[in-house]
């Protein structure tokens, strides 16, 4: 290892990057832009679900019940329908996501002290939206039932409505959201986005680096030079690691200052873990670049190993805990998951090395394997 030769290779790569103005600009614009778009847009708070009503009763009681939905911010009232037959069409066209069918004699039966079945039809296309909608429906119904029961108790036992209310709902729930008090998606999402962006952009910056030299033939200058393969790889990657670390700093500032995500953890540990992660993801790009012969193939393979796992297997949207064993196994194959835990731990939970050392170790191993594989794959005397 000769430091001067490494520096020479790095300097050459750096000049190339700086002279490609569009590339240099994009290297900083893409991460920041992704952070901004997803940070502002990516929420999972399902609200304003459009719904329609088939009210066969049209009584004061049925309107009172329906207003629980109409007045809720989770639902958007889109009007009354004549019959159940219209529901299918509206659901199929995604004009509504939910339809409520009030049976005839709804008010009358309740007044007589009898139970009534209310049908709710829910669009099941997007399972997460469906679970949320079901949750809202159950909550509205149980609140309404609590009131009905309270009135019933108060009538039958002759107690005041307030006392009856307690009897109807004897067990209260005190819900406490840990780490994210208002269960604000922005907080956890802004912090996990640091992972997401660092998983996608560094590999793309590096993926075309070596293969470009191979495809253009400029790699022969390296083959013919005294630079060893280790020196070449380190020198070649150093500028990209540098750019990615600068991006990491920008992303961290955006997450904490623009999106207001709290940072409770150990900054030193987080910075070190992030350096390991960035060398991991640049390593992914390098490996892809050594593996292929053409830039197009490098680009598509990078999509395969970055975008997909960082969306599906990082815990950004899809919780890993609820995957089936096959999914969990796949998630453990990608570095995204480990870093996502480190990010969440450092930002929201305020835990450090003592809890997260295992994840940091996994990342370090991952980086070591990637770099060793790259070293072994790169030859100055190519066979073909």
């Amino acid at each position, binding site marked *: 290892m000769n430091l001067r030769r490494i520096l020479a290779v790095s300097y050459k790569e750096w000049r190339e990057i700086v002279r490609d103005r569009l590339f240099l600009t994009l290297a900083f614009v893409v991460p920041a*832009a992704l952070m901004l778009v997803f940070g502002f847009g*990516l929420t999972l708070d399902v609200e304003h679900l459009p719904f329609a009503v088939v009210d066969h009763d049209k009584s004061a009681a049925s309107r009172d019940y329906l207003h629980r939905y109409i007045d809720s911010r989770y639902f958007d009232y889109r009007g009354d329908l004549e019959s159940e037959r219209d529901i299918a069409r509206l659901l199929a066209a995604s004009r509504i996501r939910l339809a409520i069918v009030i049976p005839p004699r709804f008010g009358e039966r309740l007044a007589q002290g009898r139970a009534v079945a209310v049908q709710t039809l829910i669009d099941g296309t997007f399972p997460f939206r469906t679970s949320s909608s079901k949750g809202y429906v159950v909550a509205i119904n149980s609140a309404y039932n609590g009131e009905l029961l309270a009135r019933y108790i108060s009538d039958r036992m002759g107690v005041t409505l307030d006392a009856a209310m307690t009897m109807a709902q004897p067990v209260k729930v005190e819900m406490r959201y*840990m780490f994210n008090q208002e269960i604000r998606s922005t907080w956890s999402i802004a912090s996990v986005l640091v992972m997401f962006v660092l998983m996608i952009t560094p590999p793309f910056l590096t993926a075309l680096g070596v293969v470009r030299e191979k495809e253009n033939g400029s790699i022969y200058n390296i083959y013919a030079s005294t630079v060893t393969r280790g020196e070449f790889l380190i020198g070649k990657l150093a500028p990209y690691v540098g750019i990615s670390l600068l991006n990491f700093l920008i992303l961290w500032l955006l997450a904490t200052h623009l999106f207001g995500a709290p940072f409770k953890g150990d900054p030193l540990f987080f910075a070190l873990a992030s350096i390991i992660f960035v060398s991991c993801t640049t390593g992914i790009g390098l490996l892809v670049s050594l593996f292929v012969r053409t*830039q197009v193939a490098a680009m598509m393979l990078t999509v395969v190993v970055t975008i997909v796992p960082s969306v599906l297997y990082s815990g950004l949207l*899809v919780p890993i805990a609820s995957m089936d064993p096959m999914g969990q196994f796949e998630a453990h194959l990608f570095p995204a998951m480990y870093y996502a835990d480190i990010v969440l731990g450092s930002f929201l939970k305020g835990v450090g090395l003592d809890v997260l050392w295992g994840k940091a170790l996994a990342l370090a191993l991952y980086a070591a394997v990637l770099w060793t594989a790259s070293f072994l794959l790169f030859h100055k005397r190519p066979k073909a």
Partner: protein
Amino acid sequence: MKFLDDDLRGRVGLWLWRFWAMMLKELIQLGRDSLLVFAITYLFLFDVYMAGNVGMNLKNAVVTVHDADHSAASRELIYRFQPPYFKLGGEMADGRAGQRLLDTGEALVVLDIPPRFEHDIQSGKPTAVQVQVDAANTVLGFLAASYSAQIIGQYGFDQALARLGVSASALENVPMIRDEHRVWYNPNQKDAWFMPLSELLVVITIMAIMLPAAAAVREKERGTIEQLLVTPLSPIQILLPKVVAMTLVILLGTAASILLVLHGVFDFPMKGSLALFFTVTALYAFTTSGLGIFISTLARNLAQAALLAILVLLPMIFLSGAWTPPEAMPAGLREAMVLSPLYYFIEMGYGILLKGAGLDILWDSLLGLALLGMTIFGLGVWRFRRQFG
């Protein structure tokens, strides 16, 4: 008159022949890049398959209990936390241990039942159960909180009825709403009926933008564009075969993915017309390639093109509702969704395949896609022709 016909036929024949030759060239070039073929196959088959193994449902979330009452009533409540949503993770002697379990992620929910819980319920005094939820992961936190509240609410309701002496058979004679919700199209809410198709439509989008962009930039970067320029081919004759070739690759991949993965592995219900689905896919892939062509005119090398493609692709996928439902988009972005061609494609993909809808219902999405797609494609072609100017 006859002379003119012959001339016209000759010109059309020549045009088609050149088109065919160029398209073949693109397909051969792609086919010889074995790693590129591997990447494309992987995305269409394995990636879509892998998407079927994940989901956004709460499954076996660990509930740890601190039971300060140890009564029949508290045990009954605890045992209502059952799979598939929850899994009991044991009891703690001390309430403070819960915080540590949440820190390390060993528990998602910590349930705290107060002393004298049973006594309070039986004597009609209000009591409260504390639920602590790890909300660091919003999806899980939200669902766990919502289901816990449902379970405890139902428990309280049952206790109230029991105290009133209402038996299960007499429930009809209590004024209450019986909630009968039915889920359409995917009654068991299988994630495997959502994620793989959404992933397939995303993969189609990635290909439709990246493949033509790469095919066009590559010629510039390697200098082979000079060779093409000295041929009698017009810019359109250079461009169209590339786009059609990539569209064919995409259609082939989509067919394989639908047949082998969606139908073969996940038993996805193909309710609507497959012919309509493939027509829409062809229209989508063809028009969306306009974005790729546009990118290729801005970039001088593939590294630039790749970064530009990401800058366009990810927001476009995000605004389509493939990852989060449109109802979860903040105001402003909800409206911006009409600018993402994938938004219409997703609507139609699920509309046709899962809901069994036809053009009578989906015509407005098709119109939106056609108008937006044609604009995008026109823009791409205009830029492409200009760069030869």
